[in-house]
């Protein structure tokens, strides 16, 4: 919602959760109010063109936004995110040891070309996804201690077809009959039900892939398995929509999949535009050329000042938290008191109000509002300049030491504005004279990977799925220099998180994660800043049922199968 770099930065992580109550919208639609089919066109700006139309190869939310509509995963989240519900699987059983998941597929599920979806399509889809030679970007939650036999994903010799084949056939995936898909896990994982809701975990049609490739190919081949996904005609999916047209750099058009088991959607044309410039999208929305957009932060005041537009604006919380990362390998940032002094000297309310027009919300904890684990009882990082100065004095750290530190900043207007505000807060409240270090985004990433920075931000995480496991793994020591850029030393944290990850009792899990969150806050592993909200404009005639939580790329990142256009 902020500006593009920041938007993109988090989009990778947060997505996949949002689903509108499946067909409920359809049945409750007041049919008298329904616009005729010719007007059932929904035009959405998803900002960026997907790199692939093969859902297994999609890693960013703006890509998954297409995968969501054209393919359907086994389960999907309930609207309130309290649990999962049926999707391509009508039900599922978990064995008492938590290791075997049996999915009972929708018996009348059909592909967009009319053929029935079988359990072997699911096995093929998961194998295609987990083929190490294809190097799918979003594959981690599936091999990382979840699916049995998947753990050595990284050590398979990808130049050997037999090595890949034996890895894929050794995975805990099976199809005992046409409508039963069984997944065996390596460890109990209460969160696995969320993992199978991701857009990457879908069935793929082997015959479609092979006919587009011009015949069978060895599993070492990296280009032939993707030929089908580059042509609208050969993209056969099991979702409510199918792709009818791909206009590179401009838009993708989806039309109803009339063979979808849950009934074809009412929207006759779902068009995603790739308009990168927020102001262009905004002016197109105003002239009626777009129906759903994300409001550029620069235009928030314009929208609020306009009586008509203000009524069409919606503020949605996202499951996304941002923080400032301290390089704890650099003295004196290895001292928790010094980190806490930085964390306590930022007026987060002023930040979200002055810089972001109140479209985000200040937060001093890790788990965002809206998912299990949200808890604001720990106020250790609350804004308190006096206490912050006292902490610095206690640590015996002088301003001249800290003035050498720079705040590493990605080169975008949004990040610069935000970080300038934060540095000003530190300079004012702690009596410092710190500077920004503004560098191009790629170089920033390569520097934080190597731990070559002092303080970096805004760094953040958005939920892949609304289970706390997805968040707490970031700060384990094994993630040091991987996602955990600051590498704080937190005694007992790894063991606690691992225990919670494999625990099957949800109450016990929640208690353990809460203890882990307290460690992060109290030792100022990072300085938590704000939760991202999304400010969207939705045309009054577009009836889109929204869940309370959504992702940045919302516009495209929700399920439009129950959406419809009212007469206007």
């Amino acid at each position, binding site marked *: 919602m902020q500006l593009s*770099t*920041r938007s*993109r*930065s*988090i*989009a*990778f*992580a947060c997505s996949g959760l949002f689903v509108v109550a499946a067909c409920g919208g359809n049945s409750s639609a007041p049919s008298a109010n329904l616009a005729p089919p010719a007007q059932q066109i929904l035009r959405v700006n998803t900002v960026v063109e997907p*790199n*692939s139309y*093969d859902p297994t*190869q999609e*890693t960013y939310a703006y890509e998954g936004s297409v995968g969501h509509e054209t393919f359907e995963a086994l389960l999907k989240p309930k609207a309130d995110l309290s649990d999962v519900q049926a999707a391509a699987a009508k039900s599922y059983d978990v064995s008492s040891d938590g290791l075997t998941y049996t999915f009972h597929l929708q018996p009348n599920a059909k592909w967009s070309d009319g053929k029935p979806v079988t359990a072997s399509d699911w096995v093929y889809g998961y194998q295609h996804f987990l083929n*190490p*030679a*294809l*190097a*799918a*970007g979003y*594959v*981690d939650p599936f*091999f990382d201690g979840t699916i049995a036999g998947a753990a050595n*994903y*990284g050590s398979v010799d*990808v*130049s050997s077809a037999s090595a890949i084949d034996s890895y894929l056939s050794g995975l805990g995936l099976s199809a005992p009959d046409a409508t039963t898909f069984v997944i065996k896990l390596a460890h109990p994982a209460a969160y696995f039900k969320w993992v199978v809701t991701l857009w990457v975990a879908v069935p793929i049609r082997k015959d479609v892939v092979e006919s587009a490739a011009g015949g069978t190919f060895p599993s070492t081949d*990296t*280009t032939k398995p*993707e*030929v089908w*996904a*580059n042509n609208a005609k050969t993209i056969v999916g099991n979702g409510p929509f199918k792709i009818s047209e791909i206009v*590179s*750099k*401009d838009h993708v058009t989806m039309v109803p999949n009339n063979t979808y088991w849950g009934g074809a959607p009412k929207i006759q044309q779902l068009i995603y535009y790739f*308009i*990168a*410039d927020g*102001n*262009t999208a905004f*002016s*197109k929305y*105003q*002239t009626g050329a777009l129906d759903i957009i994300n409001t550029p932060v620069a235009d928030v005041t314009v929208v609020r000042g306009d009586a008509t537009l203000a009524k069409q604006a919606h503020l949605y919380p996202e499951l996304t938290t941002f923080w400032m990362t301290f390089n704890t390998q650099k003295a004196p940032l290895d001292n928790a008191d010094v980190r806490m002094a930085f964390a306590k000297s930022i007026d987060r309310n002023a930040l979200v109000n002055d810089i972001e027009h109140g479209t985000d919300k200040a937060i001093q904890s890790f788990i965002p509002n809206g998912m299990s684990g949200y808890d604001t009882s720990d106020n250790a990082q609350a804004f308190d300049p006096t206490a912050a100065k006292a902490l610095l004095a206690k640590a015996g750290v002088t301003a001249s030491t800290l003035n050498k530190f720079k705040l590493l900043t*990605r080169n975008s207007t949004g990040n610069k504005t935000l970080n300038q505000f934060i540095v000003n807060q530190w300079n004012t409240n702690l009596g410092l004279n710190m500077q920004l270090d503004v560098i*191009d*985004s*790629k*170089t*920033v*990433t*390569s*520097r934080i*990977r190597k731990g070559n920075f002092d303080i970096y931000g805004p*760094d*953040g*995480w*958005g939920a892949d799925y609304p289970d706390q496991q997805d968040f707490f793994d970031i700060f384990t020591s094994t993630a040091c220099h*991987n*996602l955990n850029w600051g590498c704080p030393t937190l005694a007992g944290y790894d063991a606690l998180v691992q225990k919670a990850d494999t625990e099957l009792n949800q109450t016990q899990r929640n208690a353990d994660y809460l203890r882990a969150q307290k460690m992060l806050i109290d030792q100022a592993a990072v300085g938590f800043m704000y939760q991202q909200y999304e400010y969207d404009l939705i045309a009054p005639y577009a009836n889109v049922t929204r869940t309370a939580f959504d992702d940045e790329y919302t516009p495209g990142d929700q399920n439009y199968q129950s959406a419809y256009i009212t007469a206007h």
Partner: protein
Amino acid sequence: MAVIAGRPNRGALLPPRFSAVTESRAGSLAIFVTRRALWMIPVVFFVILITFFLMHLAPGSPWDRGGGRQLSQVVVNNLNIKYGLNKPEYQQFLLYLWNVGHFDFGLSYQYEGKTVTSLIGEGFPYTATLGVLAFLIIVPVGVGLGVLAALRQNTRTDYITMGFATVAASFPNFVVGALMVVVFSVLMAKWTQHAFFLPAADFGIDDHLIMPVITLSLLPIAYTARITRASTLDTIRQDYIRTAWAKGLSERMIVVRHVLKNSLMPVVTTLGPTFAFLVTGSLIVETVFNIPGIGRAFVTAVESRDYPMILGTTILLALVVAIANLIVDILYVFIDPRVRLT
């Protein structure tokens, strides 16, 4: 040759017959073009060599994300293997040369399963449309302004024209582009209540072309006008022009037939650099106006370290510039018979 009876061999003093001239010139032209075409091979080789190692020196890998969650090391390793980045750089370089020799420019890292050739094919029509339109504007407008200024030397027309050329030549195209967007899109939309304004993004081959083409052609117009003016001033002082006036030819006849033709040589010389400018200018103009051409493809490829795409676009742009210069050299022959190609 013996001179018989003191009479000179008249034939020896006569110029060679016209057909003989063209024949020998066509032959030397063919040799010239072939030689220059062969020279492009080492040129492209060095372009690849320099680009290849410079881009590998740039910090950040193609798999680094802009921010937020990064790909796990396991996935990065597999991606490196998939695209051959696990091999030593010299091997990657030799492999790339081998593939280019077979007209295989590789797969883009940004777009799964898409070849560099197909991506360049998608962008080329936009860049070519812009370039050709700009070119069609630059030559007549630039030459016209230059001749006008020269013929009206030291008058108000001259001062205004050259004043414009100086200003236009001083503004970099990203400034011109941004200013035009502010004036003709943002402010114009505001003043006219969205009734009339020029579109600044979401490109299409229609009124979207106006601002990018003007932005792209402004500096070359100024440059061409100045060169033409100087060259024309030089020409109109020549004896044969005075003779033409003395013969009582009309001004139009003198300007078109005698002045213009003889002033064009330096102008043609600038066409090569102008073309190169259009190519490099497309990087900026396409980025400013969000045009999905080769220029923007190059910029985004650099930003995301899409190595095959960077190399592919660089080779294409280098070839375009080389071929443009070759064409200019050939044009000399037809404009000035004194020029010999060697």
